[in-house]
């Protein structure tokens, strides 16, 4: 387990910035609009949620890979006259916390007053992420996998999954319990793409994609955008919603699956990063009320339960079997259904859900009295990089 206070991190920005609004577009298989329009619609929804207008925006930030939109176009479309902050982060699920971190720093340091953060993708009708990793321009090391027709996201994560399952005795049923629990959460979420509850028979009977991963181990591919409005905590207190403060962020990683970096690829970048995150937040895993864990594929959930200190290494299967991660359990995870069932907005819909939970706006799926939440990026098992944020309901 991770003890707080082992690391001294001077986090001068703790709770200085807040998320004042969140916005979603519809999740669909074919949005029928451009990623620019998706981004604008999500940003408009987030601004309306915050009680602000497009003319309050003076900063833009996004992450993107595969399908995307240029943030300069979004700023122009929003009519931002004096753009004071821009951050255009290259990357997918591993990088989803970086734009939020940049926005928080921008408002905490006075570079900007109101930064909108989004991820917009036509990930079903446009560029499907499952194949985006096959683009050799994205990573020089793809050249060592492509000749074996082995570069899609399910294949990459399947290679990791077998090692991880073998090491800790994790079974297919353990992964199935993750998919079933998240689908049960999605059934309570009107926004979710997949709301019909599933059984273990459904899970075990779903077709193989890349063994040991089945179809129901894999996230959705969809068109959607999510946006957040980030401003100072002081200003957020005067706005429409209960502010959710950005207590701490952390980043880590650095290894590739095949590289001279680590002899055990089942230990992710998140394992080394998590103690720094908790130190920066001034709290520990016992104080987290819910966790939105990046779940492009089911095995990432048990891996992160261990990496973030919610259980000992090798005990995540037990924790899942005990029902701890379901709504009503000690640590509800992916309360919106996650990427597996709500939809895939590349980590940003996890942050949005954490904010809605901390505002107590989640209706049937609300975690009662939620005060502190964790939202994570891909833990860095394949692409190397990771990140996470701890959010708090403002006192």
């Amino acid at each position: 387990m991770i003890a707080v206070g082992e690391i001294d991190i001077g986090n001068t920005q703790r709770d200085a910035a807040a998320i004042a609004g969140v916005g979603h577009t519809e999740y669909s298989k074919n949005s029928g609009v451009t990623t620019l329009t998706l981004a604008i619609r999500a940003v408009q929804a987030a601004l309306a949620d915050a009680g602000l207008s497009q003319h309050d925006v003076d900063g833009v930030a996004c992450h993107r890979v595969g399908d995307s939109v240029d943030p300069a176009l979004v700023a122009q479309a929003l009519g931002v006259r004096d753009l004071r902050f821009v951050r255009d982060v290259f990357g997918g699920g591993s990088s989803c916390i970086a734009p939020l971190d940049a926005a928080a720093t921008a408002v905490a340091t006075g570079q900007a007053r109101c930064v909108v953060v989004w991820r917009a993708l036509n990930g079903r009708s446009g560029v499907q992420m499952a194949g985006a990793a096959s683009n050799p321009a994205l990573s020089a090391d793809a050249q060592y996998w492509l000749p074996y027709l082995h570069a899609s996201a399910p294949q990459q994560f399947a290679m990791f999954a077998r090692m991880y399952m073998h090491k800790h005795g994790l079974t297919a049923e353990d992964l199935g319990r993750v998919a079933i629990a998240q689908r049960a959460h999605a059934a309570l979420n009107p926004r979710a793409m997949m709301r019909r509850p599933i059984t273990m028979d459904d899970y075990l009977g779903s077709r193989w994609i890349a063994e040991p991963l089945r179809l129901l181990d894999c996230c959705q591919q969809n068109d959607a955008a999510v946006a957040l409005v980030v401003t100072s905590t002081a200003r957020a207190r005067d706005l429409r919603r209960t502010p959710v403060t950005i207590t701490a962020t952390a980043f880590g990683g650095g290894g590739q699956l095949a590289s001279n970096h680590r002899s055990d690829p089942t230990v992710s970048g998140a394992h080394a990063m998590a103690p720094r995150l908790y130190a920066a937040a001034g709290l520990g895993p016992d104080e987290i009320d819910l966790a939105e864990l990046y779940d492009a594929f089911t095995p990432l959930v048990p891996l992160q339960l261990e990496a973030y200190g919610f259980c000992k290494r090798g005990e995540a299967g037990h924790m899942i079997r005990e029902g701890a991660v379901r709504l009503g359990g000690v640590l509800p995870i992916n309360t919106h259904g996650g990427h597996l069932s709500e939809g895939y907005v590349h980590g940003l819909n996890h942050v949005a859900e954490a904010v809605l939970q901390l505002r107590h706006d989640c209706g049937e799926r609300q975690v009662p009295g939620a005060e502190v939440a964790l939202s994570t990026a891909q833990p860095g098992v394949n692409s190397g990089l990771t990140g996470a944020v701890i959010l708090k309901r403002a006192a």
Partner: protein
Amino acid sequence: MSTRPYPVTDLDSSPWWEALQRREFVLQSCAPCRRLRWPARAMCNDCGSDEWTWVSASGVGAVASWTVTHRPGPAGGETFVVVLVRLDDQDDILVPGYFDGPPDGAGLTIGLPVEVGFDEVEAGDDGRRLTVLRWRRAALRGGGPGSVRE
């Protein structure tokens, strides 16, 4: 015409690919510290030296993981195996490749001793010949049949 892309090699990696086309399996060896590295990099991530030589790898290792990909579309029902092999030479070098075995992965286990082999495939729009790695079950060594190393 092949759906298999020809690898986009670069100035760091092209000597490795060229060796592979000669059916040689090589690694970089750092000149001062002898640390082995792969994939190709211009600097040792341990001692920082930018001097190295290409050396022949032992070509022996153990299966660290494998996948069985189920091909969609017209090839539906077909499967193929890709293994990830941890080299005996240095335990942080993991190298993918095909496996000389059944397409459903039957008989594979984590820790299975393997040795390097080669295969020729067609790659790229013009169907050029490309030599790739095809690992095979190691000839008897040490522990005998069924010997497995973690």
